[in-house]
């Protein structure tokens, strides 16, 4: 009886892993879809107008890069170029968004579309991530110029 329950649970868990992720990959296949950036527009005006308290702080960008590699690169790509699971961050919609809007999306995630909430990171670390993400455009532009 115990073995049967254990086997059933293992089967259910396996099914969740295989089919749950499969569906997720399917919905993410259009990673550059405009829907992926609509959340930025939903940021409340008050939050959108927020300034990055770490703007101009080079150490914040360096720390943000480290955080990006640890938490974001897996889905958004090592250079923020996007991947199967998440959209590119090197696009005008993100790079021209206000720091407050990017911070808001990072904090709240886009849960129904697969992006977890990142409010588990302290506020200052989320601003570090915003600092780094919004340098990706400059890095990309330099690459193009060269």
């Amino acid at each position: 009886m115990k073995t049967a329950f254990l086997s059933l649970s293992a089967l259910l868990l396996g099914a969740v892993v295989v089919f749950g992720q499969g569906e997720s990959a399917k919905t993410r296949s259009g990673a550059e879809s405009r829907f992926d950036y609509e959340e930025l527009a939903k940021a409340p005006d008050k939050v959108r107008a927020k300034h990055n308290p770490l703007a101009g702080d080079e150490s914040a960008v360096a720390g943000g890069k480290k955080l990006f590699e640890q938490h974001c690169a897996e889905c958004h790509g090592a250079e923020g170029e996007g991947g199967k699971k998440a959209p590119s961050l090197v696009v005008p919609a993100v790079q021209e968004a206000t720091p407050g809007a990017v911070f808001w999306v990072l904090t709240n995630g886009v849960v129904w579309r697969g992006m977890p909430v990142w409010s588990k990171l302290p506020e200052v670390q989320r601003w570090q991530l915003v600092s780094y993400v919004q340098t990706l455009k400059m890095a990309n532009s330099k690459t193009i110029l060269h």
Partner: protein
Amino acid sequence: MGVSRFLYIGILAGLLAVGLGAPSRLRAQESPYMVTYDHYLEEPGSLEVEYFSTVGTQRGGHDFHAAWLEFEYGAKAWWTTELYVDGQTTFGDSTVFTGFRWENRFRLLQREHFINPVLYIEYEQISEADKIVKEVEGHDVEADHAAPNAIARQGHNHELELKLLLSKNFKGWNVAVNPLATKNLLPSGAWEFGYAVGASRPLALKASAQKCNFCRENFSAGVEMYGGLGDTVSPGLHETSHYLAPAVAWNLPSGWTFRVSPGFGLNDNSHTLLMRWGVSREFSGFGETMSKLFRGRQ
């Protein structure tokens, strides 16, 4: 009993081997809680394998070492599912497998709010020899664990456990409150109630520029308190046990997390000490890998 010991050692060795062999870019940002839950779920597609130990003192019986292995998977950004396998060694007695649990956590609201609720639903099939004390409910007391394993393992519990995980982050602090209700699925089973509350904070809020194992931001510390609140037949605090437990977590950039938490009994019905520690490792992209394996590359 020898087989159970071998199973323990085998599982632990397997966990270590897999953990050491598999690279992981994603670092878990785990809270130090052992019993309390905050509202954060596993990242979608990630598998976290966790091993936890509890060494407990026992008046009127033998001290024990209870352990559980936990497989936590992020099915969706709003849904985490976990399988637990429990066992225990009672010193001077025996080692026994005590059952399994299947836990699901569902995020109820899309965005962050002043308080963030998560619904927790767990099915347990465990014997009465189970001593992991993952939660304290109803009139659970120290004396429940004094019976020899040969007798205790005769009793079986099929339980449904519901929790409402309420949590909030504020200025680097996390505060979490988890009321719980458990129902033995036998028709005669009463609803039992309990609670867990916790507060924790990373030792540093700003991330340093360098990758480092010993940076203060990798450590978080907190305290949790948990206990029983009686049942529908006899509600209240009489004949219940309660614990206060400071807790520390160390999140390594490699994806490993270590936790330590000594839990101190707050009344005569509680174990004097529940010394807990745990190690976990997160594997990002696990779901995608499995999906490719079973469905073929698309």
